[in-house]
């Protein structure tokens, strides 16, 4: 018995430990390559070596030991990037305070979430794991590569800039104003919460720096009255970093007025390079967004689930795109993330965005918004080997993702797709999992936060899924 058990662990061990940031090499031959930044290239080979795309061309020969994949009749596109996701999260919302900039989703990553695998099966390689929308200034987000099986430390996208979640409108006013009787109760209050905290951050920074300087002087030469310590304050420190341009803002927003409000505030504090998330009414203020260089990341067609999205349109993305705004299509959902290609195709359906532009909305545009466009988002030499092979054009409903590579390493292969792809198993989990009603899947789930699903796991209760 002992021996069998030991053997089992040996096997289990190799499976679970994975290999830290393993980079792979592969030559993908004869595919139609959707480069995104350089058009569509037929019958083209893509060589990835040690995680990096080293050559794109015809008649490439695989270096020794490098596997060749035939993609004749198939499409090769960059891994899809989801600029708004809540899969792979332990907790999503530190909902308790209107401003929680000190928390970070980097510390809320669940590397074992099966949704990661399901997203890979839809050709997704990178996500923006976002904090929820309960707070005006929520926690920082974490850009992840979906290296399923590689473990907690290996998921973060190395070198990706920090981003942070803001949220305007119904969610923060409902949670704090309506729920707890603390500001903000209105969109007026939302603005002042932001301004007050930014002011406090500037004051803090000044006082903290003055104190550190005085302390250094005093500790060197104790003379006179010692300085009064100003404790390091994580929350204010992060806010000061936002003003200093070290952290990119991704702001949950819906209505045109609140979008304009934030742009005014940001102009006053000199904050640039931000993205409005959801932004169902962004189309109404496209010229202003353009003028301020703001980006948008929107749903393809979600609307009417709450009042602030009642006056919206599925043509949002197309209007924004036509007005020269860098727009991405996101999922905010474990369901939609499995077919973002199809969500992007809807921008063609609604408003006639070109196929080329539609593809950008799930590749290079979200990459720009996350500040990683120099590394991913297109098939280019020198970029990361994050690509997916599709059975047909990815904007067709009939096309299937067949293989997904991250850093040249294959993380999904439809041909070798097992039923049970869980990484971690709760030994006490039921064979039968909970049921749900077909007409209330995800969206109408009775929950604390719109669309947020309360889950109980080994790590406690959590609010998961969308935060729309």
């Amino acid at each position, binding site marked *: 018995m002992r021996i069998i058990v030991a053997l089992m662990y040996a096997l289990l061990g190799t499976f679970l430990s994975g290999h830290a940031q393993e980079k792979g090499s592969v030559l993908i031959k004869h595919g139609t390559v959707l480069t995104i930044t350089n058009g569509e290239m037929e019958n083209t080979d893509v060589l990835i070596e040690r995680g990096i795309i080293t050559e794109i061309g015809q008649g490439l020969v695989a270096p020794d030991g490098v596997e060749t994949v035939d993609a004749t009749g198939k499409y090769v596109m960059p891994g899809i990037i989801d600029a708004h996701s809540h899969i792979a999260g332990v907790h999503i919302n530190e909902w308790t305070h209107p401003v929680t900039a000190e*928390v970070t989703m980097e510390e809320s990553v669940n590397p074992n979430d099966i949704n990661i695998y399901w997203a890979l099966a839809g050709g997704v390689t990178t996500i923006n794991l976002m904090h929820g929308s309960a707070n005006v200034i929520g926690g920082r987000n974490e850009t992840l590569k979906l290296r399923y099986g590689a473990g907690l430390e290996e998921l973060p996208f190395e070198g990706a800039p920090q981003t942070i979640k803001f949220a305007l409108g119904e969610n923060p006013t409902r949670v704090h104003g309506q729920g707890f009787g603390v500001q903000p109760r209105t969109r007026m209050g939302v603005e002042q919460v932001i301004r007050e905290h930014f002011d406090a951050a500037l004051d803090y920074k000044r006082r903290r720096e003055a104190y550190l300087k005085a302390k250094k002087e005093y500790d060197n030469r104790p003379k006179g009255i010692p300085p009064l*310590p100003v404790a390091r304050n994580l929350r204010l420190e992060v806010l000061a970093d936002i003003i200093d341009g070290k952290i990119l803002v991704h702001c949950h927003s819906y209505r045109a007025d609140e979008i304009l409000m934030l742009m005014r505030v940001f102009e006053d504090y000199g904050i640039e390079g931000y993205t409005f998330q959801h932004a169902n009414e962004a189309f109404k203020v496209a010229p202003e967004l353009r003028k301020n260089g703001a980006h948008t990341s929107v749903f393809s067609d979600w609307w009417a689930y709450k009042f602030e999205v009642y006056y919206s349109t599925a043509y949002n993305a197309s209007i924004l795109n036509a007005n020269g705004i860098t727009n991405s299509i996101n999922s905010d959902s474990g369901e939609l993330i499995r077919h973002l290609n199809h969500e992007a195709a809807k921008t063609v359906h609604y408003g006639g965005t070109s196929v080329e532009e539609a593809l950008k909305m799930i590749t290079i545009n979200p990459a720009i918004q996350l500040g990683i466009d120099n590394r991913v988002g297109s098939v280019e030499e020198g970029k990361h080997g994050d690509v997916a092979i599709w059975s047909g054009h990815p904007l067709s409903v009939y096309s299937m993702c067949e293989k997904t590579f991250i850093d040249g390493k294959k993380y999904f292969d439809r041909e070798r797709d097992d039923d049970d792809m869980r990484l971690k198993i709760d030994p006490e989990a039921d064979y039968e999992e909970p049921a749900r009603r077909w007409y209330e899947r995800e969206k109408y789930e009775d929950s604390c936060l719109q669309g947020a699903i309360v889950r109980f796991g080994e790590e406690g209760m959590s609010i998961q899924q969308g935060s729309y």
Partner: protein
Amino acid sequence: MKLFRDSILGMILFIMIPLAGWSQSMPARALDNVTIHTAEGKTIETGTIVWRNGIIEAIGSDVSIPFDAYVIDGGDSLYVYPGFIDGLALWASPDLPAKYSKPEAPGNPGYERAGIQPHRQPNKLLAKADSFKKARKHGFTTAALGLKGQMLPGQIDLFFVNGKDTGAYLIREGIGLSASFEQAPGSFGNGAYPATLMGVMARFRQLWYDAAALREQSAYYASVSSGYPVPARDEVLEALYPAMDKEQPLFFKADTKEHISRLFRLKDELDFNVVLVSGKEGFQQAEELRKRNIPVLASVDFPEEPGWRVKEREGEDEAEVTEEMRRFRERQLQAYQARITNIQRLIEAGVKVGYASNGMKIEDLKKHIQILMDEGGLSENQILAMLTQHTADILGIGDKTGDLKQGHVASFTVFTRPFTEAEAQALYSVSGGKLSEFEITTSEKEDKAE
């Protein structure tokens, strides 16, 4: 009432132990004709233990019993083990409130509501004295007692498990600080900051920063004669100073591989000492734990054995097993076995493993020891060492207790059979030299001596 029927023996012992500053020798006690198992794994047949003033004076098979020793004859049918040590027990802690009300401002709930109470001292709060009785009956003679709570529930005090009025049997207070990743109590409607794991991480940091600032202000204040603002006292932040100085380790509860990673991260950043408590998936971090020299007070609170397996073993017929079910079961079994062999794998990797009940019902211990023996890959000796000397070492009292040795504290339990056997019952418990006797019954077991 039973207590009053106790033998003279108990009365003698009562006056014997807690008195400090011995001026003269007190009468000795001896246990003769017993099988002695030491934590080191030695067995002494027909052995004798002599103790006086709470210290083992002599132990072995060839020991001469002093003239003034009161002797219990084991009649060659009793088994003596070093007293078990619970590395972190919550069984004497007051219970948490059943309900939490909605805080006025969930974002600023105050320390207590947030679960931040590092200043709380178990020796001032211990409730259920009867739990000590129960612990002795299960072989425990020493316990590090902590409090129920969340992020920072309080201090950990070390006790002999031998008195009704436990405060008097305090060995040492503040041997560590309890800590965990647990959020402030309550859920969405009535919770408070920190309500998430990431909030807890941030809160730990902020506490450390606040404590550092307060401490600095206090130091400056003390260093100048006048003109400097008086620091506000803050018992919570002040209670963190010893941890910041690494004088007091955090007894940090974490189970999953990921939580243990997060603990490493926090430790590296804030620089404190750690004893890992529970560590149910510690094996997945075994190498790192060894490298970092972090000991584990392991949980033996194993998951329920899969129901189908129990049925299968008992030959119960079951409905048709589909291929899908079979595969599901295979993986479930792997997961189950990974958990029950956790300790073995930690030990193999060279990690120091002690024991902590940390909320587990003491009645479940025997069942889980059986699992450890049958499928957990541990021998009786390994289990004994974990329950005794190794826990003592982790608690920093390994040179004084944990094993049956001359000069060690006289803490041991006398069982009717080897302790791993299902029918084994404790007959006597000696904790810090103080003896309790239990009635052996098939149904109800009563504590006799006090």
